[in-house]
């Protein structure tokens, strides 16, 4: 167990460091999430009576689609120079590779949400303070569920030619 945690931490820290340098996950997904929120803000005729119903759906679309985009990028880093083979050839438990990558992906999605949610609140004029703790709990739990399934499917399809589209399809299938 101790060894598993140590290996997971090593892979997680490596992912954080490469992300800080490359912004492979955050760079693409952040802009995408913001764009989704802005586009839907103009696309729908939002009124005080329908905004609360529509807004939650829009927020989840932004999170899930940008998360999917980020998952693809997350494994793109491992495909470059066949680093995924470097990981699988090392004597680490496969579980630690999975949990290290999952922890990294959850962290990056949470970072995006920390920025996107305030923008969302301003644009849609939603009062989230009333249910802030509940909303935060739901978001974190969903992030965990989404990224746990998403990372597994991305890893399984990482060596396939059309891996991005296939893993996205399977991910939504599992989530639904």
């Amino acid at each position: 167990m101790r060894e598993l945690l140590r290996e997971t931490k090593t892979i997680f820290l490596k992912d954080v460091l490469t992300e800080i340098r490359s912004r492979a996950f955050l760079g693409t997904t952040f802009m995408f999430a913001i764009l989704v929120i802005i586009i839907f803000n103009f696309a729908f005729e939002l009124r005080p009576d329908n905004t609360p119903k529509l807004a939650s759906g829009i927020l989840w679309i932004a999170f899930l689609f940008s998360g999917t985009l980020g998952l693809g990028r997350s494994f793109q880093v491992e495909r470059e120079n066949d680093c995924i083979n470097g990981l699988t050839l090392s004597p680490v438990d496969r579980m630690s590779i999975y949990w290290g990558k999952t922890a990294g992906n959850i962290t990056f999605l949470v970072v995006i949400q920390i920025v996107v949610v305030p923008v969302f609140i301003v644009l849609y004029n939603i009062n989230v303070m009333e249910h802030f703790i509940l909303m935060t709990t739901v978001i974190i739990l969903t992030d965990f569920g989404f990224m746990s399934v998403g990372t597994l499917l991305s890893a399984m399809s990482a060596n396939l030619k059309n891996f991005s589209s296939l893993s996205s399809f399977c991910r939504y299938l599992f989530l639904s």
Partner: protein
Amino acid sequence: MSENGIVCKGVQKKFGDILALKGVDLNIEKGDFLALFGPNGAGKTTLIKILCGLLRPTAGVAKVAGHDVHETGIRKKVGVISHKSFLYDDLTAFENLKFYGELYGELNPSKKADNLLKQVELFDRRDDRAGTFSRGMIQRLSIARALVADPEFIFLDEPFTGLDVPSATLFRDLLKQLHVEGKTVIMISHDIGIGISVSTRLAILNGGKLVYDAKTAGMTTSDFKSIYMKEIGL
């Protein structure tokens, strides 16, 4: 049959309808240095991938030190240099080696990384990102990465590709040193001269079959070139 070395018995590998390896039998004693030659598509890389555990054979058995190559324990004893570097472009040379050192459970990965960087003469580029390195430097860093756990078995797939003359000389000396240290090495090469200069055994793979396997001692480059041409049907 060597329980401490590398053993292949009837190893076959099929990719769809293509039989890349047609029952390879190979027995490499501990401390042997095998230079493996063959034309493109002969199955050399496939064999190395099976031996290091990246591929599973369709039929037959591949064992390293008496263990199945897919066992976690054996992976620590194996170092691989492939066509690709397995290095992260966004990490520095030091960070890459330290990361792999940590994965392989090195007690002091930072010290190990620094020592290896000195060994492959990249210490002055320690804090530069791998993505900024030339092909030759990447190859040297890959060598350091493969040696991070001080492996007993080293598999090299065309390691001299892209190396300039000083780097090739440095690498050849490093290989000789590894052999002196008792490492068991399999090296795929297209350079007969280099293969003969570092190896203790020579083998030729053609069309998925091992068609030649003999000791290097006494073999000259021109003699082996003739054998090679004959064995691949030229």
